[in-house]
């Protein structure tokens, strides 16, 4: 399965783009230390992938929420597929050729664009061939169904990790056994043995990171918000790419300290905070810079993202590392969207709206994401009951043809006017 479309190496381009972002951040009058760490981490992540072949690294391409802690403990180079898709749109602004290549493979337009683009990227050689493909059903049908096609396109062996829908003890035990089987698969194919002591260390780090993430979440309740308007995307990426890594701990500790200092000084992330927003689902990655500017211009800050930043309760136990990795998979904020949409998820929205003193919510209705869009009415009803208006913005996380910057600007301006009128 190949395409006639032309290849340009996206990993190489991502390394150059993240280096540029790092230099630009550093050149600011008051560079944010956590942001510099963030870009340094990204540079190292993509440099490792770029040099994987010459360094003899074993590369595992994996879907979102795949427990990368296991890969880290085995010294396997991870390639986070969806994040790499998003980064391509965010930093390079080039996605059309990847979607065209996906279409050429026969993938229907209703399949989410990151997954169509990924299949397209591998088929035209825009992403390097990994050694294995790993995927799971966390968090939707697209992730569950993507792996087999990627195996076929890349010619790589693969392993599917079946994550149960609910969190009974039988289901957590099932997932732990699934992880054991995946470790055996990786040992077979990489020739590397799992370093259980290292996995315990990674789990210990992850537990520390969860504690910091929870405290950062609390700090964001401050008025004015100390965290920059779209900052939650940084937090997401850090967990997606660096879960359990010591540099992720360093990043989070630095960020927490920055937020504490800002709160102590009464400094907000925007010059004059006017609207405190709840963000539901992901904004279009190719418009992040524009959305940041709009936030500054209008004093609008996303302060709560119940399905991205509100981690579940519980502690991880380094003495039971694999069980802890399984348990963590149920603490991930997004898992509230995957599990039955029950009282737990609904309560999260209500509580977040109250505690974060939300003025309005923005639902980014990604046309390719069915399971999230099916909650728009439900979440809107919950927030309506609390007299909190919700703006639904039709968009696509990476495909700029769905909506334009002007259209989003117009709708956001209208929404801010509505908030003013209230």
């Amino acid at each position, binding site marked *: 399965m190949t395409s006639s479309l032309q290849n340009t190496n996206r990993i190489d381009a991502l390394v150059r783009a993240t280096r540029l972002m790092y230099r630009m951040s550093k050149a600011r009058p008051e560079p944010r230390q956590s942001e510099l760490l963030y870009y340094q981490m990204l540079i190292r992540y993509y440099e490792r992938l770029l040099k994987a072949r010459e360094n003899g690294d074993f590369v595992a391409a994996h879907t979102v929420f795949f427990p990368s802690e296991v890969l880290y403990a085995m010294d396997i180079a991870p390639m986070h597929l969806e994040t790499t898709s998003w980064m391509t749109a965010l930093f390079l602004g080039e996605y059309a050729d990847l979607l065209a290549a996906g279409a050429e493979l*026969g*993938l*229907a337009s209703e399949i989410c664009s990151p997954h169509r683009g990924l299949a397209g990227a591998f088929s035209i050689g825009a992403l390097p061939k990994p050694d294995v493909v790993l995927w799971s059903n966390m968090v939707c049908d697209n992730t569950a*169904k993507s792996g087999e096609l990627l195996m076929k396109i890349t010619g790589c062996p693969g392993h599917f990790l079946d994550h149960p829908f609910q969190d009974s003890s039988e*289901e957590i035990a099932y997932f732990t056994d699934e992880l054991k089987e995946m470790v055996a698969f990786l040992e077979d194919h990489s020739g590397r043995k799992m370093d259980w002591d290292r996995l315990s260390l990674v789990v210990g780090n992850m537990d520390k990171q969860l504690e910091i993430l929870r405290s950062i979440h609390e700090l964001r309740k401050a008025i004015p918000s100390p965290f920059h308007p779209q900052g939650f995307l940084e937090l997401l990426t850090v967990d997606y790419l660096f879960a359990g890594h010591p540099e992720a701990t360093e990043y989070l500790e630095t960020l927490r300290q920055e937020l504490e200092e800002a709160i102590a000084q009464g400094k907000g992330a925007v010059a004059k905070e006017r609207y405190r927003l709840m963000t539901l689902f992901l904004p279009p990655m190719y418009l992040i810079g524009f959305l940041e500017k709009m936030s500054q211009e209008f004093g609008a800050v996303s302060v709560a993202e119940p399905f991205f930043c509100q981690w579940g309760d519980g502690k991880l136990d380094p003495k039971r590392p694999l069980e802890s990795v399984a348990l963590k998979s149920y603490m991930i904020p997004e898992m509230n969207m995957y599990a*039955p949409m029950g009282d737990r998820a609904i309560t999260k929205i209500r509580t977040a709206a109250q505690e974060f003193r939300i003025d309005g919510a923005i639902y980014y209705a990604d046309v390719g994401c*069915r399971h999230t869009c099916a909650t728009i009415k*439900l979440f809107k009803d919950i927030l309506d009951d609390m007299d909190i208006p919700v703006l639904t913005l039709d968009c696509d996380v990476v495909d700029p043809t769905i909506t334009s910057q002007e259209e989003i600007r117009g709708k956001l301006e209208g929404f801010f006017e509505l908030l003013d009128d209230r």
Partner: protein
Amino acid sequence: MKQDLIGRFREVNQTFPRTREIIDFKNNGGMVFGWFCTYVPEEIIHAAGGLPIRIVGHSTETELEDGTAYFYVNNCSFSRSCLQLGLRHEYDFLDGIVGGSTCDGARRLFDLWRIYIQTPFHCIMTVPRKYTDRAHDLYNSQVKHFKDLLEEFVDLPITDEALLKSIALFNESRELLRSLYDLRRLDSPPISGAEIMEILNASFRMPKELFNQHLQELLHELQQSDGGRPKPLRIMLVGSVLTNPQFVKSIEDLGAIVVCDELCTSTRYWSDLVVLGNGLPPLQALSRRYLNNFPCARMYPSTERFDRIVALAKAFGVHGVISETIRYCVPYAHDLPLLADHLKQEGLPMLTLDVEHGTPGSGQIQTRVQAFFEMLEARTL
């Protein structure tokens, strides 16, 4: 005579969800439970004294204002259609709903139904995506949990004896449908694909006892009849949900006969028997059957499904395969490139159609099918 017998099924379909049988069942104090997906073991509901019926949407293409408002436009029209009927009180007679975590549409349909329609009993089961022993153990525990909840709700124990009786009844239904499908292997099948769809639709909308009786009579009639002149092309339908017989008729009207199918609402619903014996408790036999049944595109590995499609196509001597995928049905859409490759290797051409649930087969679809048939005819001549 044949048309009269098929008319019995057609009548059920035309009056569904408020059929005479369901209303009678309710009036006699029975409880009716709706299920969302083929991974729900109906026998448990039957053994509890309830009437299991499948929740389906409008059989024809309909404006889905309510369904879309609650679900959003990017969810499959089948889910939206089901929810719309629920929101419009067409399923108010239900005492309970049972679903599985089978796909994004199904699980959200369950969520929205539970929250907005509030049918009294509700249970959703985790359905593993693998066939391993571990997956079977997990699914068995989920099925047992469902049985426990249902026992509590109906306030009656569901005994092994009752389960065995229900299994026998549902297996009888499967055997009868197999006999019906066997007639489609003939050079001149005595029944069309569109007529088969009427029967299949009724199979999950009425009490099995009555369905089996009606089907036995129809089979007897069909076995005596002559199929007439063979059609030049024998077609297999594959894909997700399809309940509009008009869609099949529109294909057959172009000079073919649909001789077999692999749909949520056809072979994947009825094909495998519950196998008892070897000391297997009935509940475990049930859960094994439902997880091992002809797989949905959600299951891994996909080759299980593809191999069974090829085996069916060969057994029924098909010339070509038509895939219908409801728009936004991601599991089936994802499978298409791989399925196309798989069928190509077997020399089986495939036409893929992206449709909305309930479509009768519009002009554009007919044009594409016509072109496909011309290609097939050129190959077979």
